[in-house]
């Protein structure tokens, strides 16, 4: 089988993304988590650029640039600033059994591959197997959000999910129309902005970013 180098590289990136998703799933420390997120963004930008190169879709270069800007530079920077301001640098997550989570994650990956298999068959793009990985990383991020008990890691999980989606958009479909991508980027930015405000408010109201304080609204 003769797969062009770029394709191999993209597949490599996909594998790396998956690996990072697993790493994030098991990471306890917030700072490392953010760093992993930045790394994920970097790989994403790289793979987008690769796709742009192979498919000659020029707008994907903008996408790559946007990703680099937003997800590798701005967001991690904002997050770093936030945790410094809120003084939660040393927060350590208490999570339940990491091996179990990993096992569940593994099952999810298999499930996602399975799901994506028939679609990948018909994908005309060079990167047809990436859809499964994208879906897997979305699901893994989802799992991460479920298992995190602090606000910041949850948000990182949320952003990682966006990354997964973005990867799906670029690698599987050569990117969405530019308008849409700009819109999505704007939303992410505004969302982060709002979240930033939010963190401060929550911090003021609850004295902590621990989500266990936010279980008051319920059926009793």
């Amino acid at each position, binding site marked *: 089988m003769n797969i062009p180098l770029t394709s191999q590289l993209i597949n490599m990136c996909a594998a790396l993304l998956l690996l990072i998703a697993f790493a994030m799933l098991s990471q306890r420390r917030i700072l490392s988590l953010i760093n992993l997120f930045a790394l994920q963004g970097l790989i994403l930008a790289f793979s987008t650029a690769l796709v742009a190169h192979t498919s000659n879709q020029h707008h994907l270069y903008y996408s790559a640039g946007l990703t680099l800007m937003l997800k590798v530079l701005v967001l991690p920077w904002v997050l770093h600033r936030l945790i410094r301001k809120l003084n939660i640098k040393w927060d350590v997550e208490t999570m339940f059994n990491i091996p179990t989570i990993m096992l569940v994650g593994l099952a999810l990956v298999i*499930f996602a591959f399975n799901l994506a298999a028939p679609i990948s068959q018909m994908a005309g793009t060079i990167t047809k197997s990436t859809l499964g990985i994208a879906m897997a990383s979305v699901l893994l991020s989802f799992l991460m959000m479920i298992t995190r*008990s602090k606000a910041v890691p949850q948000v990182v999980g949320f952003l990682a999910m966006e990354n997964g989606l973005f990867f799906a958009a670029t690698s599987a479909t050569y990117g969405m129309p530019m308008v849409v991508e700009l819109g999505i980027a704007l939303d992410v930015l505004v969302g982060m902005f709002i979240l930033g405000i939010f963190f401060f408010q929550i911090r003021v109201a609850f004295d902590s970013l621990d*989500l266990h304080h*936010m*279980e008051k*609204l*319920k059926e009793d």
Partner: protein
Amino acid sequence: MFDQFGMLPIDVVLGVVVFWLVLGMAGLALQNSRLIAQFIFPLSAIGSLVLAGAALAGLGEVSTAILPLGLPDLPFHLRLDALSAFFILLLGAASIGIALFSAGYFRRMVAAELSLLCLEYHIFLASMALVFLADDAYMFMVAWESMALSSYFLVTTDHNQPDVRRAGFLYLLIAHVGAIAILMSFGVMQSGHGDYTFSAMRHTHLSDFWASIAFLLALFGFGAKAGILPMHAWLPEAHPAAPSPVSAMMSGIMLKTAIYGILRVSLDLLDTQLWWWGAFALALGLITALFGVIFAAVQVDMKRLLAYSSIENIGIILVGIGLTLIFHAFHKEALAALALTATLYHALNHAFMKSLLFLGTGSILHATGERHLGKFGGLIHKMPKLAILMLVGILAMAGLPPLNGFVSEWLLLQAFLLSPGLPHPYLNMLVPVAAAALALAAALAGFVMVKFYGVIFLGQPRDTTLAHAHDAGLWERIGMICMVIGCIALGIFPAFVILHLDFVTEMLVHHSLGSSAAQTGWLLLTPIQAERASYGPLVLLLIIGGGSLITVLLVKKLYHGRLRRGPAWDCGFPAQTARMQDTAEGFGQPIRQIFEWFMDVVRQVPSPFDLHPHYHGETHDRLWNLFYVPIKRVNEIIGNQVGKLQHGRIHMYLLYSFLTLLALLAFIQ
């Protein structure tokens, strides 16, 4: 009757409906108690009179109309056929007296409340008329629920009392659940072609299974409104809570809308009738009737007593419907016509007699401020005019000849007696048992009515406040006299009435009693043949009345009329206080004893050494604990379980969404 004015009866009926609505609005605008009472309500009675006239004229012909309201493809269809005309006649005739009574009853109410009540009252009337007129499912449901809603607001007129609110709640809840069931029944009957008109439903053929579903849903839905077991719980709560004219209207007229609905669905809209529907209705009706009358016998609140009595009568009417269905299913049309006639007759009778009694309780309530039977006694001396009117009411209610209650029971028993020969052995066995149960219920009704009348009007006053009681006012008496006239006329001239009922039986079961019912003249009622059964109420009345008069005259003539007044003898007991009479509880005691397994009795028996012993007994509906409480409990349990899902942890919420996603993905794969 209205032809010379170029109007169809249905136009007149619609005119009256509009007139009522205008009156209601006028009442809301007037905000003046005296004006509303003495002006609006008598006008409303005139409307009722016109309505009754139009309905009488409309019995013989079918007229339709379409109002440009409603759904886009489904304007409001109206139809005045014999069945609706009969029930509109019932509505009009019975509401005359109620409106006149209201003119007197409400005159002292606060203006703001009265104007609101006036609006609700007239919407209630108008929506009932529209229920009878409706010829498509949508219009029917709109009118039906408007009726429920307006009557709910009428029931909660006195909403400061928690009991009243509770009653209103229970009422509307059960009514609404019933309405959903009715709606579903229509859903079955429209059978997917999206045409909700009744005429389309008439032409739809349903399989036996679906027809049965439709029938059962309708029976459940309408039964909830009628107070058929086990959906009766609202009735004894709501009727006492409402102002008396409203109770009269609800009991006398509104319950009949449910009867109308059952008849409409089972005999008109569904094209097949299965015999077991009839057997089921029959059994249900009997249980309801017996249940109602037994509980009526042990009540201590006069309006609750009447409410339970209404349950009984609805049961009897349902028995009639059941019989009709059985006969109709076996193509015994003559018998079906007889049973149906009895059913309709009883519905009409009940409208008059129960309204009369409820109106009477209104006068008593106004005169004494009491509802508890234990506080009454000897009112015949304080309210003699009312006592006479009420005597007619209880005699009719007890099903005694020559009044109207007897006629319908007589017809129904005739239908039972003629039923042998059904091609189904079990039914043949069921029928005599049913007849026996019916006879038992009828006899118990006598017990109940003696208790009702005796405890309120006879004996010595049990409470000192009764000394200030005054007789019913003029308007109130006029209203009740209308009812009394109805009771007597229906009792004395059955052959004449049946001639008019024939239009309905002809329409529903394609047979009528007309040819035979009056074959020996209007004097005698002979439903099938003179040799088989006949009844001449006028003769009876004349003989009993005449016999009494002759006896009086003879005794006066032959002996002497000397009379002395003295203290009561009472076997020589010296102390004669009011407390020595039977209380309402006491009077019901034998029934309570016999049927104790049937009810939930809470007793407080005084100790033998108590110097001021007070016996206290309360009877509760066992079905409440057997049926309603479990439903409530299950509801709470499910609610608690469901509530646990929403426990405030965002992780779990995410997990739900995650699992949902995975499940769906797995599903489509």
